[in-house]
């Protein structure tokens, strides 16, 4: 791997929970992100997968410094975000941009495409009038929209086109790192493919680093170099994309992959391997390995010791104390 673009060191994001009016004593905490350490190299696409409530979106917001980390450090291009002054932070943030799931909600309905993009361009740079129109046109072309669209309002576009505008807006400040939170989940299948192709092309042409968050494993596999699997605020598996999905180490990843395979078979009959139950609440996570209540391999020790990420294959690690026992035969 080349130089690290983003480094997370033991990041925790905890939310205090009000106990209700007659609450007695110790307020509970939601441990949305609970000790995540991760390094993303320059130009790398890291896929982040997990079920709803696992903390992936909270982690994304922490990377953008929209939510402060309760503990741990977010280091962007070698600089700890927490140690920066307001001005430095503003400059550092220009390097990170986000693309959201719902392009209907993330664009201002009262602003034309031109105004939306111009605002983003000028947020960090002074660009004179004529140059501005030119830059807007170039941005639109980059995302596959005709420059004549710049006078239109968001409601005049389809969902796929709106997501293109949101991507153009993210690119307007010339970021090096893009955090995309479920960017294609709200789109129809035939439009999804267009946007995935666009993201793949952009990251390649502009040498962008990207954190791609999705619950759709097939989409993540297609775009990512590496995949991190999150469960209840922790990363339980991390490795090269194809290895994680084709030879998963952690029992949770295995269940996730098996459940997701619903859409990939060419007929009925094949048995689904099911994960029993729902993900537990992050308010009172089970002791030890938080996956043990749903795990078919759990032993007594899993209920006591909290497992750390352990390298099992080169560049492929998982947080499970039973790895050797489970994968001994294969």
């Amino acid at each position: 791997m080349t130089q690290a673009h983003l480094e997370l060191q033991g990041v925790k994001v905890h939310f205090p929970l009000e106990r209700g009016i007659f609450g007695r004593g110790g307020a509970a905490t939601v441990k949305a992100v609970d000790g995540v350490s991760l390094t993303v190299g320059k130009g790398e696409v890291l896929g982040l997968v997990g079920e709803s409530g696992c903390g992936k979106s909270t982690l994304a917001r922490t990377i953008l410094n929209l939510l402060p980390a309760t503990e741990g450090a977010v280091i962007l291009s070698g600089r700890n975000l927490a140690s920066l002054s307001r001005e430095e932070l503003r400059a550092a943030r220009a390097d990170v941009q986000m693309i959201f799931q719902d392009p209907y909600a993330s664009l201002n309905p009262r602003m034309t495409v031109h105004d939306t993009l111009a605002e983003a361009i000028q947020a960090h740079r002074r660009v004179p009038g004529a140059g501005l129109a030119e830059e807007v046109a170039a941005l639109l072309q980059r995302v596959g929209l005709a420059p004549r669209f710049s006078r239109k309002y968001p409601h005049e576009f389809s969902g796929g086109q709106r997501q293109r505008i949101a991507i153009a807006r993210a690119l307007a400040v010339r970021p090096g790192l893009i955090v995309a939170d479920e960017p294609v989940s709200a789109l129809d299948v035939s439009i999804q493919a267009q946007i995935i192709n666009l993201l793949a092309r952009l990251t390649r042409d502009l040498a962008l680093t990207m954190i791609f968050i999705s619950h759709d494993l097939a989409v993540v596999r297609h775009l990512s170099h590496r995949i991190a699997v999150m469960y209840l605020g922790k990363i339980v598996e991390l490795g090269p994309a194809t290895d994680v999905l084709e030879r998963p180490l952690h029992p949770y990843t295995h269940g996730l992959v098996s459940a997701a395979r619903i859409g990939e078979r060419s007929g009925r009959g094949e048995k689904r391997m099911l994960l029993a139950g729902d993900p537990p609440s992050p308010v009172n996570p089970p002791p030890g390995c938080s996956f043990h209540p749903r795990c078919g391999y759990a032993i007594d020790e899993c209920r006591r010791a909290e497992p750390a990420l352990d390298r099992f294959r080169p560049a492929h690690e998982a947080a499970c104390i039973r790895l050797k026992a489970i994968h001994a035969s294969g």
Partner: protein
Amino acid sequence: MALLEVEGLRTAFHTRHGVVRAVNDVSFRLERGETLGIVGESGSGKSVACLSLLGLIPRPPGRIESGSAQFDGTDLLHSAESTLRGIRGRRIGMIFQDPMTSLNPYLTVEQQLVEPLLIHGLAEGAEAHRLALAALKEVGVPDAERRIRDYPHQFSGGMRQRVMIAMALIAKPDLLIADEPTTALDVTVQAQILDLIEREQRQRGVAAILISHDLGVVADVCDRVMVMYAGIVVETAPSEALFRAPQHPYTRALQFSRPARQAKGTELYAIPGLPPDPMQVLAGCPFAPRCEFAIDDCVRGPIHLEPLPGGGESACLRIQRGELEFEGAARALSQ
């Protein structure tokens, strides 16, 4: 005789901006105990078609312009509201996408479970309670004796959808209509819910219509699949055949645009352009403007859904003429 036979259904919405022809001449049949999947993107008319059958289209602006739907001897499209009320929830059960908005937040799960029984006069009092509890256990809600007194907000998304399924099945219907039942759920929970619907439906021999935007989900659970595009049926086929050899360029394109079916990192096959404006009346095939195989005749029309030798049906002119032959994405990948 078929349990449900829909003929020439047309549903339109008369809006200020024009007439939206949401369902445009749709016909299909469903045998007892059979599972039919209806697949299409948003705006394809799949949900409107089913809501039309149940008399649940808001009128105005909606209007059922023509057609018939024989359900076990009753024409659903030409029945009095009182007749439909006797059928909905009793002989036809329904499950919707979002269990939070379709459950009443002010009533306990028990109150909602017994409602179909009370309304249709099937049971009351202790007997209704017993049936509700049995239904809740059947769909795999743990600790059902206690949970039955809880309110919907106390359940997770997956558990709520289980409650919906229990409600839909409690009156022992002949037909279950499930509209995107797993779309709002996590993948791991999706698999559980699909398994549950499949099991319940097989055990009881209930016929089912499963509506989804996900070709994979539908093919996994259904005997037969019907693909809709811009208000018309473009293809019907047994699920397995649909994947082996799609008989419409749109079905093929849908299969190929999924990343799971393509080599990692390659440019994904993407359908160019956008679905047509539903207010415009097209003479020919609505998919023609986006279709790489379209010829002049496709645009000129008219087009019809025609039976094919293999047992399916296709609305593609060139398939009907034997000019095109497709291999499914499943096979393409295994090579």
